[in-house]
């Protein structure tokens, strides 16, 4: 389609050397971006090319298939020109970190936390990079391909929360009841 190629040409013009490769996959525009200066690239896409909606962030683990092992995948939408764009960023295993997009889109917060939780890819400058779907004591990152599907996790002791309010009255009542019952029998 001529429309898609003109859009890609626009993106090439704005991002220049940051684009490693661009392609058309089943009618979608896909761009492979350089990991360095990622936030600046996204800022340009957002401000200068009006890609205003960050639709999704996810990752893929190409374990033993590709050399930079991970790929972080972004889907962005331009509401004005009704176009979608998919951006893929290769991330190596030994330095699994990319720029966080939370300064640009606050909606990236939950999405990046999920990628960190399930893939163990860090997002630099993320304000609150905690696990989101799993619990804090979970070992490993389950969507990595080297995480066995039937692996059991160790049992976690009950977490003590400071300042938790426990109503002692109901416990005392129960103890009294037990005492009266035992004295009667």
């Amino acid at each position, binding site marked *: 389609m001529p429309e898609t190629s003109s859009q890609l040409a626009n993106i090439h013009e704005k991002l220049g050397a940051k684009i490693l490769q661009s392609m058309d*996959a*089943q009618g979608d525009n896909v761009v492979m971006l350089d990991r360095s200066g990622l936030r600046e690239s996204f800022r340009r896409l957002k401000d200068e090319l009006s890609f205003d909606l960050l639709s999704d962030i996810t990752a*893929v683990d190409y374990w033993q298939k590709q050399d930079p092992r991970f790929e972080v995948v972004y*889907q962005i939408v331009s*509401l004005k020109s009704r176009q979608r764009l998919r951006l893929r960023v290769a991330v190596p295993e030994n330095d699994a970190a990319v720029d966080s997009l939370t300064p640009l889109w606050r909606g990236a917060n*939950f999405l990046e936390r999920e990628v960190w939780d399930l893939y163990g890819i860090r997002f630099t400058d993320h304000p609150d990079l905690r696990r989101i779907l799993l619990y804090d004591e979970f070992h490993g990152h389950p969507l990595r391909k080297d995480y066995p599907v039937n692996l059991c996790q160790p049992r976690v002791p009950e977490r003590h929360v400071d300042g938790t309010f426990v109503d002692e009255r109901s416990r005392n009542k129960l103890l009294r009841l037990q005492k009266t019952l035992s004295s009667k029998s």
Partner: protein
Amino acid sequence: MKAEIPELPTEVMELQMGPSHPATHGTIKFNLKLEGEKVLDCDVEVGFLHRGFDKSCEQATWTQVIPYTDRLNYASSLINNVGYALAVEKLIGAETPPRCQYIRVIISELARLFDHLTCCGMAASELGAITAGFYMIEARELITRIIENLTGARLTVTYVRIGGLKHDLPHDFAEKVTSAFTTIRKLLGDCDRLLSRNRIFLDRLSNVGVISRETALNYSLTGPILRASGVDYDVRKAFPYLVYDQLDFEVPLGSRGDNYDRFLCRMREIDQSMKIVEQALAQLPVGPVWIDDPRFVLPEKEKVYGSIEGLMHHFKIIMEGIQVPAGETYFAVEGGNGELGFYIVSDGGGKPYRLRVRPPCFIAMGAFHEMIKGYMVADIIPTFGMINMIGGECDR
């Protein structure tokens, strides 16, 4: 003489609301910071229903994933089925026959009706409007009966297949839909009179949970929440799929972005969905519902039991799964709560290499603290109700 007002202690109280709170239908926890009854901050904890959807899908064949998608947003499982099938078909490069596309539109809209009726009905009954809530649940029950008559199941339907549908519509489908819609319109008229100008309902909903147009976009919100803030983004109009571009419908928009606008958006979308179903039923072409491609379609039973080729063909598709060419794609449909996207990566085998769902209500929960900040604890209930968080989809 000036009355002496004693200095009230203003201490920030931390309150954990959930994970199984009676008024939040869904397992979710809010870690609130309160000043009196005012919410200063809210940290949303999700994941209580996490069951490893993505990982499970990587172990299943392409067809076996369809029942898993039912369990995402179980209030609109038909839309999930359609979205997944369309994403895989996009990767294959197949286009289903027109009759199949029309039926997919019809079932998507029925599922949307189901979803919106659940959301509005539950939100109303949580605010004390039990009668209106029951009216909507009755309307939902009529939709459920149509879905049951069509698919054999009420919630987990597994009706759509890659390249077609499980079977064609039953012969009395159109009549049943027409008679159900007559009753639903009557019930919704009653609900409208009970709710839309009800003083108590209005006071609880309007100017609560306000989110501006810019903030909504910044938080990647989609669906009725984004449209209630005045942004015209509906996947059915922006990136038309199936035969939505041949049908006449409107996208209702709000202006203030509060809970009342969200409620009205959903109520108007119910009307639009019924209109779409009626149009699609009137235009429904005759023909096959399956694509004509033996690589993806199971052979007929006579061939399976009557010829060795048919048996082998059946065996290969069931045991090895359909072979989807290597590649990656993303396809989004308009789900009940927003853009429901499927990002799939195939390495050319019978199983997905990676399957990612863009869950609209997970992303909406990411903006929840922004909606509730500065409001009262009691406002959490309608705000959360109008998001229509479904645990199966939010936590996957």
